[in-house]
C-alpha cells in the first residue's frame, strides 16, 4: 500500500516548521471530519454528499504525496454518483493509513 509523505509540505514550507505543524494539525482535523461524513452519507445512500467528501479527501491525498491513491480515488469519485463503487475498497483502506500517519507526527 502506498504511504504518505511530507515532500510537498516541506517544499512549500521552505523550512518554516511552524507552518508545517499548523498545516498538519489542520489537515488531521479536517480529514477526521471528512472521513466521518463520508461514511455517514454513504450509509444514508446520499452519494452526492459522499462524493463531496471523497473530493475533499482526495485533496488531502495530493498534499500527502499519495499520487497513486489520488488517481484511484478519482475513479471512485466519478463512479459513486452513478451508484457504482469502483475502487471503494482501496479508498477505504487508505483512510486509516492517512490518519495514522498524521497522528504519529
Amino acid at each position: 500500500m502506498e504511504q504518505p509523505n511530507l515532500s510537498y509540505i516541506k517544499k512549500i514550507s521552505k523550512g518554516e516548521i511552524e507552518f508545517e505543524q499548523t498545516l498538519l494539525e489542520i489537515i488531521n482535523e479536517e480529514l477526521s471530519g471528512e472521513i466521518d461524513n463520508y461514511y455517514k452519507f454513504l450509509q444514508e445512500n446520499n452519494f452526492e454528499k459522499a462524493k463531496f467528501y471523497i473530493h475533499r479527501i482526495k485533496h488531502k491525498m495530493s498534499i500527502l504525496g499519495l499520487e497513486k491513491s489520488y488517481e484511484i480515488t478519482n475513479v471512485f469519485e466519478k463512479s459513486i454518483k452513478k451508484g457504482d463503487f469502483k475502487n471503494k475498497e482501496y479508498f477505504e483502506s487508505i483512510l486509516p493509513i492517512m490518519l495514522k500517519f498524521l497522528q504519529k507526527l
Partner: protein
Amino acid sequence: MKGIIVDDELSARLILKQVAINVPNLDIVADFENALQALKYLNKNVVDVIFLDIHMPDFTGFDFIESLKNPPKVVLTTSDRNFALEAFEYKIVVDYLLKPIELNRFEKAIEKVKTINLVEDVTRTKIKNEPKVKANETDDTLYVNIDRRLVKIDLSSICVIEAKGDYIKIITENKNYIVHSSLKKIEEKLPHEMFLKVHRSYVINIKKIIDIEDNSVLINKDVIPVSRVNRNELKRRLNLL
C-alpha cells in the same frame, strides 16, 4: 497586487497563502471559507485577483463568478481536471491551478494576471485619451494631408476634384488644394449623394453645377468634361423638369 482566497477548506487557504508569500508584489488581503462572505467583502473592497475554489458546498465557484458585478481576474483552484473547459468559458478566468498548488505554476498564473491587467489598463487609457469626435463633424468634413499638416475641408465647399497624376487637385469655393492621393481614394470618402465621378479625371459636387451641356458641366467658371458613360448617371441624379 491585491488578492483574496475563496476556499471552503482551511488547509487549502493556508497552503495558498504560504505559496503566495514567495511572490513579490502580491498581497493576500483576505480569505473566505464561503462565496457569500467573499461577495460581501467585494461589495466594499477592490481587489485585482481572486483565487477561487470551484468545488464548494451550496454556492460553487461558478455560481460565485456569475454573481460578481465588477469582477476582478479569477484564478481557479481545484482538485479536478474536468472543469478546465467550462472554466475558460468565463472571460474573467485567467488561469486554472490544480491542487496541490506548486509555486512555479502559481507564479505563472500571477504573471498572466499582471499581463492581462496591464494590457487592459493600456487599452482603457488609450480609449480615454482618444479625442471625442462628433459624428456630424466627421460626416461633413474631410481632413487632407498637406505638407505634413492635416487640413480640414468642408465637404460642402468642394466644387471639383481633379486627378493630376499621383496627386489630386481639390477645388473649393475659396481655395485649391493639391493632395498626394487618387480620385478613387477620395471618392470612397465622399458622400455618394453629393459627389459624382463624371469623367476619369473629375469628380464633381452635383450641388455646385450651374449648367450642363451635352458633354460638359459648368461649375463656378470651370467647364468640366462629362464622359459618355457617366452622362446618364448624371442626368438620373439631377432634378430634371
